[in-house]
Structure formats: C-alpha cells, structure tokens
C-alpha cells in the first residue's frame, strides 16, 4: 500500500489483506489535508433547509459567508433560509462579549422577517468568550413569542458528526409543540433528506402514491409547523443515518415514534425502503400500492439504466463521501451499473458502518476513514479507478488525474434519489466516464502509447 502516516494506518484497510477492523470516529490527525469540516458545519447543513426559520450565525463573518446559500436545498415556499445573517463579531465584541449584539440582531431580524422560529448558531469564538447564548435566546423567545433555539455548534467541540447531534438537539425542541393538528394513522416523517435538487419531493410523491401522509420532512423543504407536529407521525424514516439518527432516537424515547433506517439511493435500496414502510403498517392496501409502485417504476427505468450499463461494465469506481450510509448505497448502485468499487471511504463512518462496507465490497477494495487528497489520489492510481464519486473538494482532484467524477454532495444539480434518480445517476456517471475530453488526457494518451 502507498505511503501513509503512521497515525493514519489504522484508519485504512484493504479487504482480504488486512484481517483487522478499522479505526474511526477520531479527530483528524493534526497536519493532514483533511476533507472534514467542523461541528458548526454539521449543524448548519442539517438545519439550513428549514425554510421559514431564521438562521443567525453568531460569530465572525467567515462562518456565515462560507455557508451562504452553498447547498441547493430547495423550498417550495419561503426562502428565508437562503439569506445569510451574521452578528459579524469584531474585536471589541470578543473582548466585551457579543450578547448585546446578538440580542439586537435577533430583535431586528424577527421584526423584519417574522419567522416561525429562529436558530442561533454558536461558533468557536462564542464558546471561548462565554456568551450566554441560551439566556439571550430564552429572553428573545419570551419577548417575541417564537421559539428561539440555540445551536451548540462551536467548531472545536468535535467533528461534523457532533454538529449533526447539536442540530438534532435544537430541532428536537420544536418537536411536540403542536398537539392539535390532526395526523393520519398512516403517516411518516422523512428524516435526513435535505431536498437537494428536489429529492425530498420525489420521495414524498412515492409515499403519497402509497396512501401515506408525510407529516414533516426534517429538514428538506422543512417547515417549523410541520416539525412541531411531527411527533404524532406513526413512523420515522431516517436517511443519511449519520445526521439524523439521534433525532429519531430522541423521538422514540420521548414520543414513542419508532424509526427505520432507509436509503433512497439506487433501485434496490429505494424499493427496500418503500417495502419496509408498507411492512411496518401491515396494511394490505398500502402493500399493494407499494408493490405496484416499485414494479411500475422499475420497469420504467431499467431499460434506460441498461443502456448506460453497456458502456460502463467493468469500469472501476472510487467513492469518498460524508456519511457511510450513502457509501453503502453507492457501492450497490455502481454494481447495478456494472462497476466495481475499488476504493471506498467516508468522513464520518462508524465501526459497524465500515464492517458492513467490507461485507458488501470485493476482495482488495480499500476502505478508508477520513481520507486526504494525497491518499485518495494514490489509491485511485493504485487501483486504477475510472470514476470518483465525491464532493466539491474531490472534484478537481479527479479531473486533474483525468478520471470521471460524479458529485454526490452539495453540488448535485439533478436529483439522484428514488427510481428516476438512479437513471440520473447512471446518466451522469455515463456522461462523465464516456466524455470525449478524456481523449485529451495525457495520462490516457501515455497509457495508449502516445507521446503527449
């Protein structure tokens, strides 16, 4: 295997060669070009799609600037979430405290926008100077009559995963505040889908066709009122388990709502998700509708996928994504396209996640936790990957190396969820892998014996 920092070795295994488990969930090694982000980032991406809430970043300007409308979480209505609000803390605030500024900002914003709720994100500096954000939020909440929720997302308090947890804790305070609005017994909440490119809408439509009410989406195209009554849904469906399992557990513990982990990525996983729901309700009509839906949709998309598969068969893929659950689905979906996953990693996977990954991948596949660009590029070379599936920071690495790329993160512009999403995924992978531009890649030309 390629040259790896001693401290990193335990976080990488090659299936079939290394008999050991993988180490994960630890802070990135200091000095590595980690692809990971911080607690604030985790909390911000999770709560951000709640479109009728105010999102105020309490800290210096950067934290707000870097998270301003970077994630295409679509809203079917209000778009307050797409604005960037910051207390823009300056040196004097760091010295004298930022509480007064925070309170003034909240007052102005609530007066202007009349949001349904407000989230106040604490950044590193707030944790250090010791602003009592909870107290400010409680005061403003009492005065304005809306929930004002502190999000404990100081960047240094852990990894992005801890940010998910902070987000879940803040969102959980909204859950259960509406006990009046009627909710169907055949009802679910969609957790952990963020409506990138409208994916939540696709999934919602499936459930509508199955005769199931979606009470709330947390948080894609999210609304404060829907979250407030979400505790009365019969079932929570958790996608992107890394981000939202904590909320699901809390809702189970406090409100008795059971949950199922699902994925809507790939035909197999989407069908499994819909069947799991119909099985849960045990309602013959729901089961019939689910079966019809799966058969109809699969029949509709399989020919298109088959056409793409012919060109992709035998190609090799590397996968590096945020959450491990997405990696599972990707491995399966790529297999459906005839592709082998030769490198797979995540930023936030757990030991069980990696254990599962090692079960579903082939011998020789490299499994890696918290990879950095140098490692990734070397694994890609070593394993001869033709495609990298990743996020914004991985894209140019793939392109510079002259291999195909598919964004499976914030920057996807077409929905990849559900049955039609699988066609889109196949189309995107196919378009990138068969792009004529690779003819001009010197590496490929050299491999063919050319000189350039």
């Amino acid at each position, binding site marked *: 295997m390629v040259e790896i920092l001693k401290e990193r070795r335990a976080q990488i295994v090659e299936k079939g060669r290394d008999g050991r488990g993988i180490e994960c969930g630890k802070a990135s090694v200091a000095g590595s070009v*980690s692809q990971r982000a911080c607690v604030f980032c985790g909390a911000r991406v999770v709560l951000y799609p709640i479109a009728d809430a105010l999102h105020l970043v309490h800290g210096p300007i*950067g934290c707000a600037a870097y998270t301003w409308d970077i994630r295409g979480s679509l809203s079917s209505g209000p778009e307050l979430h797409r604005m960037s609000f910051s207390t823009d803390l*300056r040196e004097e605030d760091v010295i004298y405290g930022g509480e007064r500024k925070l309170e003034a900002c909240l007052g102005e914003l609530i007066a202007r926008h009349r949001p349904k709720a407000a989230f106040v994100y604490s950044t590193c500096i707030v944790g250090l100077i010791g602003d009592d954000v909870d107290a400010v939020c409680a005061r403003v909440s009492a005065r304005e009559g809306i929930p004002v929720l502190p999000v404990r997302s100081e960047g*240094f308090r852990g990894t992005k995963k801890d940010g998910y947890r902070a987000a879940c804790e803040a969102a959980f305070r909204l859950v259960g505040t509406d006990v009046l609005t009627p909710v169907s017994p055949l009802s679910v909440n969609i957790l952990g889908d963020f409506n990138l490119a409208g994916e939540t809408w696709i999934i919602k439509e499936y459930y509508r066709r199955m005769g199931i009410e979606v009470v709330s989406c947390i948080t894609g195209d999210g609304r404060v009122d829907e979250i407030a009554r979400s505790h009365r849904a019969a079932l929570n469906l958790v996608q992107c388990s890394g981000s939202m399992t904590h909320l699901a557990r809390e809702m189970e513990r406090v409100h008795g709502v059971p949950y199922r982990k699902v994925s809507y990525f790939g035909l197999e996983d989407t069908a499994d998700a819909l069947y799991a729901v119909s099985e849960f309700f045990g309602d013959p009509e729901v089961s019939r509708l689910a079966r019809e839906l799966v058969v109809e949709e699969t029949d509709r998309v399989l020919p298109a996928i088959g056409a793409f598969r012919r060109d992709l068969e035998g190609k090799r893929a590397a996968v590096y994504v945020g959450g491990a659950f997405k990696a599972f689905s990707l491995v399966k979906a790529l297999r459906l396209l005839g592709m082998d996953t030769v490198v797979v990693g995540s930023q936030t996977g757990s030991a069980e996640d990696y254990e599962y990954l090692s079960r579903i991948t082939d011998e020789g596949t490299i499994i890696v936790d918290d990879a950095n660009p140098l490692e990734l590029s070397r694994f890609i070379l070593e394993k001869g990957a033709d495609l990298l599936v990743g996020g914004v920071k991985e*894209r140019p690495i793939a392109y510079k190396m002259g291999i195909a790329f598919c964004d499976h993160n914030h920057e996807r512009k077409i929905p990849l969820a559900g049955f039609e999403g699988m066609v889109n995924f196949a189309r995107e992978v196919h378009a990138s892998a068969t792009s004529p531009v690779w003819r001009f890649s010197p590496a490929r030309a050299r491999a063919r014996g050319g000189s350039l």
Partner: protein
Amino acid sequence: MLLRHTPEAVAERSALTINPAKTCQPVGAMYAALGVHRCLPHSHGSQGCCAYHRSALTRHYKDPIMATTSSFTEGASVFGGQANMLEALTNIFALYDPEIVAVHTTCLSETIGDDLPQIINKARSEDKIPKGKFVVHANTPSYKGSHVTGYANMVAAFVQYFSRSTGRRTGRINLIPSFVEPSDMSEIKHIASEMGIDFAMFPDTSDVVNGPMDGKFRMYPRGGATREQIEAAGDARLTVALGRVGALPAAKLLDTKCKVPVEALDLPIGVRATDALVETLRKAAGVPVPDSLSLERGQLVDVLCDMSQYTYGRTVSMVGDPDLLVGLVSFCRDAGMRVLHVVTGTNPGPKFERRIKELAGEGVTVRTGLQADMFLFHQLVKGERPDLIMGNTYCKYIARDMDIPLVRVGFPIYDRVGHSYFPVTGYRGGLMLLERVLGAIQDRIDRDAPEESFELVM
C-alpha cells in the same frame, strides 16, 4: 423569491450583517500562501475553517486547493494549540514535504492566545522543521479586517520572514499585487517582461490555481514566487505595490526592514491605471516603452473609441474588494461611464473614499466596512437603478431581482469560468473586460429593442 426580503428603504441597523460583501482573513492568507512555490498553507484552528477555505477557493478556481489544519479540539482550546501545531509540523514535513509551511491563525487560536513565534521556535529547536525548510506565520484573526486584510498580512509575513538586505542593491523591481486572479498576476508579469526589466513578483498564484489538466494530481503545481525571490526583494531598488489595502502593507514593511522605496499604485485596470504602472516601471528601470505594449494600449483605446457610444454616460454600481473597486472605477471612468455606488465590506481606510471620489466625482455613494453588505448594496441599487452591476457571483440575486445586467468580477465567482484565464488588468485585460461590459450592455439593448429598431449593425 429570495430577494423579496430586501426592502427599498435603507433602515439603520445596529449590528447585523446581512448577505456579507466580505469574508474572513484566513481565506485570504491561504490564497496568498498558494502564491509561493512549494508552500503549504496551514490553518491553525478548528478543521472546519480549513475545509471552508479550501471549498471556497476550490469552487472559485475549480482546481485542487491544498492546505493543512491543526485540527483543534476542545482540549486544544483549553490548553492552547502548541501540541497540535508541533504534531502538525511533524506530519506535514513527513508526508507532504513542502519547502515552506505558511501558518495563519484563526479567531480560535488568536483568542486563546497562541504565541506562534514561540511555537515555531520550539519546533525548530526540537528539530521538527527539517534543514532547508521553513515555517512562517501571519496573525489573521477572523474578527478583524476581511479576506483582503488576511491576504495582505500573509504577504507581509513572507517579507518579514524571508526578505534580507545584503547591502548590495540590485536593479530589480519588486511587484506586489493585491488579491487578484492568477490571470491578472500573469498579465502584470507580462507587462514587466515586455518592458525587459529585472523584476520579481510575489505572491504569484498563476500556474498554481489555474493549472493544466495533464493527468496528474500535484500537491505543489509548478507556479508560485520562490523563496529566493522574496529573500532578494530586500536588495531591490523599488517595490511597486498594486493596491493600497492588499499590497501596500508588505511593501511598506519591506521599506522599513530593508529600505526598499515604495511606489503605491492602483491596480492597473483600464488605460489610465495601466499607464501609471508602465510609466512607473519605465522611469524606475530607465527603459523605453516597447512597441508591443504601445500596440496593446492602442488596441484598447481603439475599441474604447469605437464603442464609446455604448459606454459613455452609462451608469454602473459595484461591490467587491477595495483595491479591485478602485481599479474598476478607474476603468469605468476611462469608458465614460458614471459610477453610482461603490460598496465593500472591508474597511479600507479613509484614503479609499477619497480616491474613489477623485476618480468618479463627488456624486458617487461609497459605503464601506460594517453593514456595507450585499443587502445594503441591493437597497442602494433599488433606490437608484444603474445600467450595469459589477461584482461577484452573489450579485446574481440582485441582478435577477432588478433585471440589470451583471459583469462578474471579484471574489468569489462560483458560477462562471474565465476569471482564472482572462485578466482584467493591463491593456489586454482592459480589452477583455471592456468586451464583457459591452456584451452585457449590447445584449440588453438587443433584448429590449422593439422589432423596428432591432439593428443588425451596432
């Protein structure tokens, strides 16, 4: 729609920033450090900062952006970041083998009071910095200044650490550009090269963040100013600082430290500002202006003249970074345009407003610093509608809301390409910018023309 949220009336705000027209210091420091060859930027703070800056620069340049982080945890924020920094340096030199590690701080490490010089000394005394390798640092707290300040601070740090005066003056001229694109840096070098003068430019991000696709991933692309150049800058005869906010601090430090005189110029955008650069170089080096540059200048003036009827008297509002804004105002005035609004989230000092008014007249509205954000810019534009907006990608919301054409220039640009390769500086860059401005104006005239006056020849 998103911008229904912006009312026309400008209300006084006590504290709040809405839709910022700036970002924080470290990203500027990271960018400046990429402009030095085999230099690895290092973020001394939580790993989120580094991830955000890398993402921002990656989105803007569509190239890999390499930087490392001290990965602060709760412990580091209580006990200080020294242990993280020392571990980081060991790992960085072992794995990534840079020549230089350029450390910038964050609000976190600044507030806990990490003493970077002391930590770097400790690293050196403990042999954590291999022979022939260097670690430099700049203080870049996020709660002061902006990304432009961070850029300026990191450039000054290179001078502080590397520039030496041997007592033997050379004929060399130092060129320090403000926070501009790699294409602009290339263009500035082009001008100096055409004049045949002995010069060194730093930082220089050309061939670093606009690298070729050649089938390889490189930690350290081939571009970047060398450490030797920055060291030798102390013996130069003159430093030309292109931009008061981003470039002048390093030039002044070089003067203080090594007695190299400074000439502070505006960023060379448009005819006048480029003339000023050429004239300064000509005088300092005692060389004639080559025909090739006269030709480039003549071509720019030719197109300005050919198309003057489409630019003269047109109104423009712009938002961005101070040095760029001065250059753009100068350019727009060359083209006979009237500048209505100039907004920057950076606090550029009192000279900025004076300079803008010298160029654009007293009628221009200038807003800077706190609460000078995109929200305010939108309100100003609603109050007095320009024919054209110039600014970064975030202006697209405003341009769409107001149905005003937008010319993208500045940082960040996340939704178009070109800025990495097509400069706005120099005569050639001026021509490219003019072409884009004309395209925006003329497309609009075509779009809005009634059929009977929709003309073939314009």
